């Protein structure tokens, strides 16, 4: 039975309206923009191997993003969406997790997936919607998913994955498997009703979930501050839900690592859901369909380029002698070649067989679906030139 909360409230006799100024939330930063550590900072747990793996992954994603934006311009893929400038947020947080923790992303977290071991070939197969794509070519580019790597398939509708993460984490808690769920989303998606539902329910049920908001300043053309929200970003909302909350420099790999490591402990050991707000900036356009010059200045972009997470990490690695410039260049070169090779290979792979069109609607296609497929194949066979990608591979006559 519920406690009568009211009796515990402090009483005042003079009205005073509080507002956002009642709660200013600072930002955790460990690695400064110049690549040196704050003196008194509390460091995350790490070793050389971990930091090199993170660097390697960041470099890979940087190359993949740059290369695929170009590939889209050349008309080789239909669409691309890069995580330029936000690599620390996704990769650093993935590095703080157990590989069996579930990842539920928005669409700009290719870094987390790469960190888990998704291969460059797997990326390419999805981007080219070919028959080797784990998603069977059904979704637009960058909608990755992989059950083996505990990376939930990305879907376009925004914020829907947030309450799903609460539910997934509930199952983990009930299974007592010591795992948690991390859920990424943008500050724009945090305006959706699903966000509100998700965080409130997670706090009520005390499930092991980490909500990681990438506040990158924009939702397509809409600036966060003043047009997406009027308050002090997303973090204060966590306080409202009674949830552990922290704001971090999302371009600081150390802050991301540290906060996520601590959040995971809270989640898994104390069933405390956690909200992390990572402050960052979307360096590229929203996607290849977007041109940001219509809504923001080059100056603003330049200001943020100085905070680049990859350069920052590289400087630190160099200063620590865990990396040399030659080695860094070599990694870059090697990633470029791998991406190019995989791209060339993937674009030659055929699209899925037409039979796949009715699979996975249900666990088994029902009679009407099977009939619809038969009719479609008969039609394709009548007009093979009109459907060149699939007509050549329909066997015999009408089956």
């Amino acid at each position: 039975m519920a406690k009568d909360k009211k009796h515990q409230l402090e009483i005042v006799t003079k009205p005073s309206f509080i507002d956002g100024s009642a709660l200013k939330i600072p930002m955790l930063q460990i690695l400064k923009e110049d690549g040196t550590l704050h003196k008194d900072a509390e460091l995350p747990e790490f070793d050389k191997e971990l930091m090199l793996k993170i660097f390697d992954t960041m470099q890979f994603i940087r190359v993949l993003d740059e290369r695929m934006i170009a590939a889209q311009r050349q008309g080789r893929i239909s669409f691309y969406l890069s995580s330029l400038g936000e690599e620390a947020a996704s990769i650093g947080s993935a590095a703080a997790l157990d590989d069996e923790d579930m990842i539920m992303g928005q669409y700009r977290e290719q870094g987390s997936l790469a960190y888990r071991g998704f291969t460059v070939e797997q990326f390419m197969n999805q981007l080219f919607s070919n028959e080797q794509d784990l998603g069977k070519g059904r979704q637009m580019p960058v909608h990755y998913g992989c059950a083996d790597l505990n990376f939930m398939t990305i879907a376009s509708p925004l914020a829907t994955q947030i309450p799903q993460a609460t539910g997934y984490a509930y199952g983990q808690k009930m299974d007592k498997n010591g795992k948690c769920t991390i859920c990424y989303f943008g500050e724009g998606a945090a305006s959706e009703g699903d966000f509100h539902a998700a965080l409130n329910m997670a706090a009520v049920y005390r499930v092991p979930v980490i909500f990681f908001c990438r506040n990158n300043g924009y939702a397509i053309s809409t600036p966060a501050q003043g047009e997406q929200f009027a308050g002090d970003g997303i973090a204060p909302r966590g306080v409202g839900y009674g949830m552990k909350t922290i704001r971090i420099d999302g371009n600081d790999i150390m802050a991301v690592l540290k906060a996520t490591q601590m959040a995971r402990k809270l989640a898994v050991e104390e069933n405390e859901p956690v909200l992390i707000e990572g402050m960052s900036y979307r360096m590229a356009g929203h996607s290849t369909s977007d041109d940001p010059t219509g809504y923001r200045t080059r100056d603003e972009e330049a200001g943020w380029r100085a905070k680049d997470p990859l350069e920052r990490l590289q400087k630190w690695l160099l200063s620590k002698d865990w990396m040399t410039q030659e080695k860094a260049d070599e990694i870059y070169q090697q990633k470029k070649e791998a991406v190019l090779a995989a791209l060339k290979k993937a674009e030659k792979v055929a699209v899925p067989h037409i039979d796949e069109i009715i699979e996975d609607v249900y666990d088994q296609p029902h009679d009407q679906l099977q009939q619809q497929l038969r009719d479609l194949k008969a039609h394709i066979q009548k007009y093979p030139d009109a459907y060149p990608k699939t007509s050549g591979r329909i066997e015999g006559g009408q089956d």
Partner: protein
Amino acid sequence: MAKMNLLQAINNALDLAMAKNDKVYSFGEDTGSFGGVFRATSGLTEKYGKHRNFNTPLVEQGILGFANGLASQGSYAVAEIQFGDYIFPAFDQIVNESAKFRYRSGNEFNVGGLTIRTPYGGGIAGGHYHSQSPEAYFAHTPGLKIVMPRNPYEAKGLLLSSIFDPNPVLFMEPKRIYRASVGEVPEEEYTIPLGKADVMKEGSDITLLAWGAQVEMIEKAAEMAEKDGVSCELIDLRTILPWDIETVAKSVTKTGRLLVTQEAPLTGGFASEIAATIQDRCFLYLESPIARVCGLDTPYPLSHEKEYFVDHLKVYEAIKASMNY
């Protein structure tokens, strides 16, 4: 066998499902220890604990978002929406998420363990926000199954099938007859297959098709018509999506006439889908137009509920019109 009303049969099905598999969870607004506003989940918290049958905050989109996530994790999530009229805030989670989860991931993930229970329908003086029959809103959505039982026996068997079916199922409960419909129900577990209509009574002159609470109307109307010498074949569709075209088409091929009735407004209702399909399948056998006996194209009114209600008299009149065409 035991005498149960429809609510008890549903409660019993939930009880058996939760006993059988400890990854079955039941939740919704007020469904915890209180047992739900209709008491469909009563006793479950006592039996299975507050982590397996529990209250949610008041947010339907959250209930379905949570349920989708829980099901994708490998659990059986049985979510109650307090009234069918309040399912619309969850529309996106159902239509864009539950229904497309498996397809969009190439079967890497699925929410097959999801079942959504919700009471639907009018005749309880509820006005337009406690009377809607929203099945057709969902029937345009490949990936979903939709099930609507007509009595306690059917409700139990169909709900057990729905919970363990490897696809997301929307299970709509006819609340007008929650307590009024009483019948013999086996106490042990049994299932009734989804996707199969039930030919309740054979006949030769006209096929009467309904689902859920509306089945009572074709039964009563058929009684009246039989007295006029009209031989009626009665079919309970049971599953709205995917629906059993074969059984209906076979029946209409035989009788030459079809009447479909639904509580929801005429335009865009599921009766229209049936009529469209059957006129195609049975074109040469039809002796009169397929009749749809449905709600008016208005919201469900309160003070004119009796007039709005699609009762047996309206069905009976439509049978006569079809026979005299």
